[in-house]
């Protein structure tokens, strides 16, 4: 019988190790797996590559993970904090202690999609002629220039969703989905914290992420 429910965050993160690549969902504090990120800090793993849209606002889980010195490199579309105070990432980056691969947000999402779908990469017109195309293969199709962007995959994806069931099916709410559905497809192990964990199966017509992409579901009540 399919049952992907786990009782504790430690079970959700079992197997995570030093040097892992970790995808973290979330956009502007919505859909961020804060509970799992705090549990990840507690495991003590280090040398991580974090793949997340942002390098972390003040007080966010990613900022805490960076401040704890666990992150070697981040792949993101935003590495700038809001307000005058520098974020833990900005401090580490200007000190040369952390790596950054900055990616246009749509290319970031599509690279993860390619990883989840088994593609090696794709050609895109985005970023052609800019600093973010540096070192990337350029090729012309139908009179327009494109660059090659390669797939992103990870050892773990950690997401937050509104609803889950024991099959691992997920439903998101509002602007919470963002990178969650695509990250679920591109990691060896996908762990999800959900506001509501259903005993019964979710309505199949409304499922956003099919359970085939999800390995562990943890009940963590508490909003977006």
């Amino acid at each position, binding site marked *: 019988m399919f049952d992907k429910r786990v009782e504790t965050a430690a079970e959700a993160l079992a197997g995570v190790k030093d040097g892992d690549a970790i995808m973290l969902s979330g*956009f*502007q*504090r*919505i859909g961020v797996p804060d509970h799992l990120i705090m549990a990840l800090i507690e495991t003590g793993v280090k040398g991580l590559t974090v793949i997340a*849209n942002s*390098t972390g606002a003040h007080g966010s889980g990613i900022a805490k993970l960076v401040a704890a010195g666990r992150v070697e490199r981040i792949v993101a*579309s*935003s*590495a*700038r*904090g809001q307000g005058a105070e*520098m*974020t833990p*990432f*900005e401090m580490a*980056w*200007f000190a040369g202690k952390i790596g*950054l691969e*900055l*990616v*246009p*947000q*749509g*290319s970031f*999402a*599509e690279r993860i*999609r390619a990883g989840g779908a088994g593609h090696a990469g794709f050609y*895109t*017109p*985005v*970023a*052609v*002629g*800019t*600093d*973010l195309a540096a070192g990337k293969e350029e090729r012309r199709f139908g009179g327009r220039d494109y660059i090659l962007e390669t797939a992103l995959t990870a050892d773990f994806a950690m997401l937050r969703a*509104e609803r889950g069931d024991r099959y691992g099916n997920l439903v*998101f*709410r*509002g*602007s*919470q*989905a*963002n*990178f*969650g*559905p*695509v990250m679920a497809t591109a990691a060896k192990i996908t762990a999800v914290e959900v506001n509501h964990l259903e005993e019964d199966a979710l309505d199949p017509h409304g499922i*956003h992420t099919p359970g085939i992409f999800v390995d562990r579901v943890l009940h963590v009540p508490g*909003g*977006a």
Partner: protein
Amino acid sequence: MIKPLTRNQMAWRAAQDVADRSYVNLGIGIPVLVANYIPRERSVMLQSENGILGIGPAPAKADIDPYFVDAGGQKVSLAHGGMLTDSVGAFTMITGGHIDVTLLGAFQVGYNGDFANWDAKLPNKGPLVGGAMDLAAGAREVRLIMAHTTREGEPRLVAACTYPLTARGRASRIYTDLAVVDVTPSGFVVREMVEGMSAGALAAKSGAPLAFASDCKTLAAPDL
């Protein structure tokens, strides 16, 4: 005495050009203010790259739903007929050419339509590209809203951008606090200027040659 337009007036002017039944993405800063001034009789779907198509009016405090934020992190409502998707869906709309127009802020724009809006190379702030390059490459039309000069009086309409580019040759119209300027195959063409502004005075505030439309009009906006 020449009166430059305020931020709200610049947004108002840009809003007058937003077509009925169009799909529009508004960047952070002055562009999001455009939503307040789109003529009521026009039906426009505002897209946010974190997965909302159809952003409604700013919600009253009592109506705030914490699951709904826009790309700038502001709490938003959903318009009638609006829908939700994930980042892959949102960027398929953007890079696939389904967004009719994007209005973006910029540091500089070249007479050839190159523009720069993502990395000011600040000494204590990390880079943030977000969805800017995706929008710049993928939207059918890219319009910019920006002050005509820097606070120090340096031109922002230039012969060649010195800041890192967002895209090459994609800007088609610029709304400044002094003028409405089109980017044409032969360079900048001024369509409107604020009252009292002379061609010579505007040219002196611009870093590339300006041509003036034969029917160049007065740029006027209501008090806002």
